[in-house]
């Protein structure tokens, strides 16, 4: 046997052994235990790869970095090695793909066939059909920005931005989505990225070895410790449960899999398994499996060669990593650290295996079929919904109406009001909230969202309440015909600027703090009724917010209950919570709604006082209001009444959803800057001073052609639109497709800017 083993030569690639390691060292350790006399040759593409110095390698075959290698020559050399009887176990995903494509199922090449690799490409992983696992919803970034943003809102923050092979970024806002996409696209030189829903749960994995479709064995690994990057540091090994193993065996047979693999999964609170990745190689923790008595690299080699391996006793079902210093090989001296690039404060060495470089090179090879492959199945964002289409059609009509003759003289930047869009939004909200049975639903218009008189008039016309945050806003609402009985007052500075001026009672008043509630109670008991409804704003414990009473503190809750108990019986008691669904996601908003009802129940039970009014909202995205909230008002009412049986009124304040699509900012092109690479920079006379909300969500941009037609600029693209200000941050659009025909003097309209863009715009750079 020793003689047979001596004949055995095994090439193992992927030797980096840092915080985010490749499996080469683990494979070598396992093979050394099983084949003490075999020749193990370590392969890597950087002399900075730490595993080069691992003692179990008899030889090192160091290659030049991927961008220097002649791939044809390299393939020829590997072919020669394989022909000589050596085996090759790859520890690098992209190398696996390249080898599978280039050397097409050579018997000594222990990697899966191309057809199998196609089936395990993330994020869809079609191979897993029939297995008791789910795939988290995802969407490729090649769709429009609005669709991406809809995906984020639907599934809630955070979401993952993932690269085609490695790397992922957990992002919590639209701005972070944009930044992560830009970073990963640059690293991998591809726009083939995707967003994926974040699954909360425990990380678990399956590792297996297979040969020509035969599952040799598999283990289950539960992580016991992870690195800051989420990589395994310690784990517990056990047998794969039969409900997973049996279907896995069938899948492997169908795929005709050869080599190692790892299925990375997440188990959620309900116990469901979500498959995140199917890596076409052994995991970096594979020697942990060997420690537990399952030596898969040895099993694979034995099956491929017929040479039996030396079995060893299981040492422990658990493994952990430790940091070890090992002597560096004299023949591979450690290179000094390179100098940081200009502008870098610290040196960051990334990807010593050179995978991004290989990805770039493979884009022009047959293997790119796998690399570039677009996902097969996508959980598409609900598109072309009836109301969404209706809204867009109205916007189109409004743009069609723009008089180009006038636009030539347009004093830009200029706000455009889309009357029919605004009417549609207010009318549909009024229709949806028209509930005559208790609890009645009253729509409210938040004056601060956009105090434009045209919106206020529509709100009054459709019977909305006016939600205000200051005495000046009350004055504005009254000036547009609202009575005091139609006004809701909330916010932390509601008495500004002139204190408690004696006015007729408001419809509702919501206190923002315990201190304010105490003062309001004093006033209404001794002086003036202030409002028919007296309530408090609740600060949800799970949300970072500066507003409302922090009920997570028992002290605050106790004081709140004590104050509620002394609210005179002639007043109705209300609670209020406003959180923008666009910032926390729709699912989270509905959970927050349920949570608020529970706080209402708690206040009722502790105080003995019924909650009669709730005020909810805080900023929906227009499509969410149309599709999600207005269609579920009956559900919302039922839930609220079930939790709070004394409820009489629900105030629904949808915020920016009523105004955002109803205005656009017309800007004029000041300059076109075109580079030889095809990238265009457009400078316009608008700026972040007019569009301060530009980076919080996607804005559509329309180009008015000089001859009268118009075009919606598409995304993604390679150009950007910059504002007029001499400020680094004054960038209005990135990754946008700017047609070559656009000229100086043309009009670009930034749509979706009718809410906080308009109301928070400021004078800047105007002297």
């Amino acid at each position: 046997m020793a003689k047979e083993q001596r004949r055995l030569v095994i090439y193992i690639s992927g030797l980096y052994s840092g915080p985010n390691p490749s499996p080469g060292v683990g494979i070598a350790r396992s093979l050394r235990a099983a084949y003490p006399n075999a020749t193990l040759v370590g392969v890597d593409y950087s002399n900075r790869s730490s595993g080069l110095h691992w003692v179990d390698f008899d030889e090192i075959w160091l290659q030049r970095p991927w961008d220097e290698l002649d791939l044809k020559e390299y393939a020829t050399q590997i072919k020669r090695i394989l022909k000589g009887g050596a085996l090759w176990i790859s520890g690098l995903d992209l190398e696996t793909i390249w080898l599978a494509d280039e050397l097409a199922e050579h018997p000594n090449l222990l990697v899966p066939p191309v057809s199998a690799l196609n089936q395990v490409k993330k994020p869809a992983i079609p191979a897993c059909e029939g297995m008791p696992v789910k795939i988290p919803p995802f969407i490729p970034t090649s769709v429009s920005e609005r669709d991406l943003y809809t995906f984020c809102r639907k599934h809630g923050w955070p979401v993952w931005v993932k690269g085609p092979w490695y790397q992922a970024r957990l992002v919590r806002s639209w701005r972070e989505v944009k930044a992560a996409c830009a970073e990963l696209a640059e690293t991998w030189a591809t726009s083939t990225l995707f967003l994926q829903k974040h699954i909360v749960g425990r990380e678990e994995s399956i590792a297996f070895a297979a040969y020509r479709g035969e599952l040799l064995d598999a283990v289950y690994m539960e992580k016991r410790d992870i690195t800051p990057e989420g990589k395994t540091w310690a784990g517990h090994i056990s047998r794969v449960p039969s409900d997973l193993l049996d279907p896995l065996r069938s899948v492997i047979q169908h795929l005709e899999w050869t080599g190692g693999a790892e299925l990375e999964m997440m188990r959620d609170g309900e116990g469901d398994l979500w498959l995140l990745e199917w890596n076409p190689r052994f995991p970096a923790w594979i020697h942990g499996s060997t420690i537990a008595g399952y030596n898969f690299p040895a099993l694979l080699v034995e099956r491929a060669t017929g040479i039996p391996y030396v079995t060893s006793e299981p040492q422990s079902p658990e493994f952990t990593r430790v940091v070890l210093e090992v002597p560096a090989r004299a023949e591979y001296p450690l290179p000094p650290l390179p100098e940081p690039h200009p502008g870098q404060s610290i040196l960051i060495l990334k990807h010593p295996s050179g995978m991004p470089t290989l990805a770039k090179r493979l884009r022009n090879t047959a293997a790119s079929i796998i690399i570039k492959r677009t996902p097969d199945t996508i959980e598409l964002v609900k598109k072309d919904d009836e109301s969404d289409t209706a809204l867009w059609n109205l916007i189109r009509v409004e743009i069609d109406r723009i008089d180009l003759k006038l636009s030539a003289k347009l004093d830009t930047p200029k706000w455009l009001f889309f009357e029919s869009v605004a009417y549609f939004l207010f009318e549909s909200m009024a229709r949806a909230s028209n509930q005559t049975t208790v609890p009645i639903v009253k729509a409210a218009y938040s004056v601060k969202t956009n105090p434009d008189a045209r919106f206020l008039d529509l709100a009054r016309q459709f019977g909305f309440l006016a939600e205000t945050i200051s005495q000046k806003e009350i004055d504005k609402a009254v000036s547009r015909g609202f009575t005091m009985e139609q006004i809701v007052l909330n916010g932390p500075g509601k008495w500004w600027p002139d204190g408690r001026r004696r006015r007729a009672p408001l419809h509702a008043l919501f206190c923002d703090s315990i201190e304010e509630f105490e003062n309001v109670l004093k006033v209404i008991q001794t002086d003036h009724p202030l409002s028919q409804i007296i309530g408090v704003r609740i600060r949800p414990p799970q949300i970072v917010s500066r507003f409302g009473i922090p009920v997570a503190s028992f002290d605050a809750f106790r004081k709140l209950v004590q104050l509620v108990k002394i609210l005179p019986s002639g007043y109705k008691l209300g609670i209020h919570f406003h959180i923008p669904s666009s910032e926390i996601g729709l699912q989270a908003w509905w959970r927050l709604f349920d949570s608020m009802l529970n706080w209402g129940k708690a206040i009722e039970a502790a105080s003995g006082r019924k909650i009669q009014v709730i005020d909810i909202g805080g900023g929906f995205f227009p499509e969410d209001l149309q599709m999600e909230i207005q269609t579920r008002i009956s559900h919302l009412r039922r839930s609220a009444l079930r939790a709070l049986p004394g409820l009489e009124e629900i105030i629904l304040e949808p915020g920016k959803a009523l105004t955002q699509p109803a205005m656009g900012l017309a800007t004029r092109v000041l300059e076109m800057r075109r580079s030889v690479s095809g990238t265009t920079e457009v400078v316009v006379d608008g700026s972040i001073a007019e569009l301060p909300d530009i980076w919080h969500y996607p804005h559509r941009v329309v180009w008015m052609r000089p001859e009268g037609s118009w075009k919606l600029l598409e995304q993604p693209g390679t150009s950007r639109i910059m504002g007029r200000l001499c400020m680094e941050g004054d960038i209005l659009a990135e990754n946008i497709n700017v047609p070559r025909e656009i000229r100086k003097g043309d009009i670009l309209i930034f749509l979706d800017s009718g809410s906080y863009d308009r109301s928070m715009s400021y004078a800047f750079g105007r002297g």
Partner: protein
Amino acid sequence: MLSDADKELNSAVEKFSHFIPSIILHHGKDCCVMAHEWFKALDISFLIDGSIYSAPSWIRSQWKWGGMDWPLFWCQVPDLKTLDCGALAALSCEAFRQRGLSVFSVQLIQRFSLHDAYHWDRKWAEKGLLSNWISGSLVYHEACAVLIGPNQVRVWDPTDNTWLRPSQCGGYATTVAVRFVAEGYPAKIDVLKWEYLVIPSNTWIKIC
């Protein structure tokens, strides 16, 4: 012939056999109503992924672990900074129960070291508390079992903020014996399944 470890465990089981799972008492007045309602609403607030099976890990970030006086009433809970494993387990069971799940108190014996036991003994003594939960290197501990399927439970340990697994047997900080207290459950449950272990209820079982 029993090993020393077996003898120590038998002795501990005998010592802890009369221990009953910790419960939080209610004065039946506003003071406890307010605290109880606050606790329930707070738990629902932290159901971040929306699953009622999610661990109430927020409890451990609200209260430190340590010795405390018993009995414990609901109205005392919010103002305490430190709760012992029994109180943490009782709170966890209450959180799961009010979400609509069936729960059972879990009593455990866990193995640590004599060295640890001395430290705990001193810390408890400093507060004038009895350390009768320590028996040599074995300690009495409490957790909460949640019914997730027919007779199938998961065991939440709020002290360590982790789901306990029976697979770790022997060694430091592992569970060596367990008793699931299924009294009071509406339907009679004679046995409970904790992963691969089938455990008769209301009986101390050595699992390791």
